[in-house]
């Protein structure tokens, strides 16, 4: 999977920098503007813009311009993880509910049989 490999490389490159890792942790707590991030990490606006664009290319961050402020938040990679987690959850509940389905079916049949016995 060349595509996957390339994306993995981009992710590793993005995460190889201590500031960029810090930015992700910040955004894990709440969204922030580029200006906020630059101040928090004691950097120039230009320097922070570069970091954010690396994270953005790796799909780890998405940015959105509202008026004159560019807001950053964790990117779609998070959504994939979330979807995977929900899928795991769904498999557990499917397995559980399949077993419950079977049991309920048995109970229902037993009840019917008991009812018929009572009527005789």
């Amino acid at each position, binding site marked *: 999977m060349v595509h996957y490999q390339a994306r993995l490389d981009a992710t590793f490159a993005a995460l190889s920098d201590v500031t960029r890792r810090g930015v992700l942790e910040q955004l894990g707590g709440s969204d922030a503007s580029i200006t906020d991030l630059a101040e928090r990490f004691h950097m120039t606006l230009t320097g922070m813009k570069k970091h954010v664009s690396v994270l953005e290319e790796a799909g780890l961050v998405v940015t959105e311009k509202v008026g004159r402020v560019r807001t950053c938040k964790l990117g779609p990679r998070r959504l994939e993880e979330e979807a995977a987690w929900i899928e795991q*959850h769904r498999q557990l509940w*499917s397995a559980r509910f399949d077993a419950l389905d079977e*049991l309920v079916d048995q109970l229902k049949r037993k009840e019917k049989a008991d009812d018929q016995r009572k009527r005789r």
Partner: protein
Amino acid sequence: MTNVKEGSTAATNRTAVERKSDRELVVMRTFDAPVHTVFEAWSKPELFQRWWVPKSVGLALLSCDMDVRTGGSYRLVFRHPSFDQPMAFFGTYREVVPNKRIVWTNEESEQGAVTTVTFEEMSGKTRVTLHELYPTTAALDEALAGSAEGLPEQFDQLDELLAGGA
């Protein structure tokens, strides 16, 4: 980028799971049996333990104590082949209304959800809705892979990898 649809499930599967808000998860399923039968399967320990731990999960249920009434408590102990120590799950029934609703707490962790199961009669069938409400967004996020809590550890692994890399 894959487009994630909420609660997207295989068409063959009748169990729907979705993240309803940043603190809630909902699981739904309809059973072809009257409400009292389905409720019985949830409220009688000897029946409950026959389905709660599906074989595919690989857990063995060591003990199952359930006092299913408002104010009662429960305790389930499991063993997983890859762990030495058994795992206990426990909590209290906040509300039990026969054939309508069961609400319980999950007290094995600080950030445990409150689980509400409702039973609705629908022309002879029963719709079961299980709703998990986490105390905070972070608590549900923590359950998600790649959560803030998981990050430092991943970064450590990454650092090692990068340090060892050419």
